[in-house]
C-alpha cells in the first residue's frame, strides 16, 4: 500500500499538463477540421431549407432576397443593421410577390417557430410553415399539416389601421367552428393551445412588422431592380 501511494505521487504535474494539453490540441485540430469541411455544406442545407419554406408560404415565388427590416429602415441582409431578417420573394418577372417573416411563441410544450408569408398588395397572410415545434404528436402537431387549419392562412386578413401603425383587427385563433371574420383563425379541436399560439405569434409579429413593410415597400422593389441590372448586362 505504501509503495502504491508513493508511486501515485510520482506522477508529475508536468505529465498531467502535457497529457491534457496534448489531447486538447488533437481535439481542437479535429473539431476545426470537421467544422471547416462541413461549414459550406451546412450553410447550403440551411439555405435550401429556408428557400423551400419561403416558396411554400409565398405563392408563385421563384427567387428570394434577404433584408433586415427594423424601425430605422430597411437594408440588404449582411450589412450591420438593427431589425428582423425578412425574406422578400419575387415571381419570374421580378415582381414582389410577398414577404416571408419568422414568428415564434410558446406552445403547449416549447416554443413554436414558424415562417409565414405576407402579401403587401392584399394586406394579408398567404400561408404558414412550421419550422420548429415539440407539440404532442397526433394532437398539437396538426398545426403543421392539417389542411383545414392551414386553409385559414390563405388570405388571412392583416389590414392596417387608419394610422397605418398597427393592425385594424387583432389576428386571433377562435374555438373550432366559430370563425366568422377574415382575421380569425379556426382552431383545431383538441389542439386549442397550439392553434392559439400560432394566432398570437402572427398577431404580435404582424402588428410590429406589417406597418414597417408598408412604409418601406419601395425598398423591397428598388433593391430587386438594382440587383437585377448587372445580370441583364
Amino acid at each position: 500500500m505504501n509503495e502504491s501511494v508513493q508511486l501515485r505521487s510520482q506522477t508529475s504535474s508536468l505529465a498531467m499538463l502535457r497529457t491534457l494539453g496534448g489531447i486538447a490540441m488533437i481535439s481542437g485540430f479535429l473539431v476545426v477540421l470537421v467544422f471547416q469541411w462541413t461549414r459550406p455544406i451546412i450553410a447550403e442545407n440551411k439555405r435550401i431549407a429556408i428557400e423551400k419554406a419561403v416558396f411554400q408560404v409565398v405563392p408563385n415565388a421563384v427567387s428570394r432576397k434577404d433584408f433586415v427590416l427594423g424601425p430605422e429602415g430597411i437594408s440588404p441582409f449582411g450589412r450591420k443593421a438593427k431589425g428582423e431578417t425578412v425574406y422578400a420573394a419575387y415571381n419570374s418577372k421580378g415582381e414582389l410577390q410577398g414577404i416571408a417573416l419568422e414568428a415564434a411563441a410558446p406552445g403547449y410544450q416549447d416554443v413554436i417557430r414558424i415562417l409565414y408569408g405576407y402579401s403587401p398588395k392584399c394586406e394579408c397572410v398567404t400561408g404558414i410553415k412550421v419550422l420548429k415545434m415539440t407539440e404532442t404528436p397526433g394532437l398539437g402537431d396538426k398545426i403543421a399539416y392539417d389542411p383545414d387549419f392551414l386553409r385559414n392562412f390563405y388570405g388571412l386578413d392583416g389590414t392596417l389601421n387608419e394610422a397605418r401603425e398597427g393592425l385594424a383587427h387583432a389576428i386571433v385563433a377562435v374555438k373550432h367552428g366559430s370563425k366568422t371574420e377574415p382575421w380569425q383563425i379556426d382552431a383545431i379541436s383538441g389542439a386549442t393551445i397550439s392553434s392559439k399560439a400560432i394566432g398570437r405569434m402572427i398577431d404580435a409579429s404582424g402588428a410590429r412588422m406589417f406597418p414597417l413593410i408598408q412604409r418601406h415597400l419601395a425598398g423591397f422593389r428598388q433593391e430587386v431592380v438594382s440587383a437585377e441590372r448587372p445580370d441583364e448586362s
Partner: protein
Amino acid sequence: MTTAPHKQEQVTLDTFLRGIWEENPVFVMLLGMCPVLAVTNSTLNAIAMGLATLFVLVASGTLVSLLRKMIPREVRIATYIIIIATFVTMVDYAIQAISLDLYNSLGAFIQLIVVNCVILGRAEAYASRQRVGAAVVNALGMGVGFTIALLCLGTVRELLGAGSILGYPVFSPDFQPWVVMILPPGGFFVLGSWLLLFEWLKQRRERRTLQSEGATAHGS
C-alpha cells in the same frame, strides 16, 4: 494504487458478440437510458442515434487505447471526456451536413452522447486496459448491440404509434395510431416489454439447463 498490468484479452468472436447479447448495453446493463427512451420514437431516429453512438464508441475506444500508457490516472476521466466530446462534435457537424431534418428531429440528444455512460464506461473499463485491436472490436460489438436495441424500440414504437416503418405506412388507412407509443410513456412500455421478453427467455433457458442436468444426474 498503480494500474496493475491487466490481462490482455485475445480478440475472439466473443469480444465482438458480448456487446450484442451477453452484455448488451441496453437490455442487460441498462446503460444510456436517456437516448434509448428519448429518440426511439421512429425507426430512422433510432438508426441515426445508434450509428452516431457506434462511431463515437469506436473512435474514442481506439484513441483511448492508443494513448492508454500516456494518460496518468489522475487526469484520465478528464482526458476521456475531451476525447469523447471531440468525436461527438464531429458527429454533430456531420449529421447537420447530411440532413437538417434529421438533425432537428434528434434535437439535443446528439450532443448528449458526450455523457452517455456506455461510452465512458467502455473507455474506463475496457479501452484503457486493452490493446487497440481488442478495444476496437469490443467497441464495435457494443455499438452494434446499442443500435440493435434502439432499433428494437424504434420499430415497435413507430409501428404502433404511427402505423408505419421508416415513414412507409404498413397498415390499412383505417388503422388508428396508438399515439401514446411515440410519446415518452410509450418508451417505457416498449422497453419494459422487451426486458420482460429477454428475462423470460433467460429463465426458460436456465430452467431447461437445470432440467437436463437433473435428467443426466438421474440417468447416471
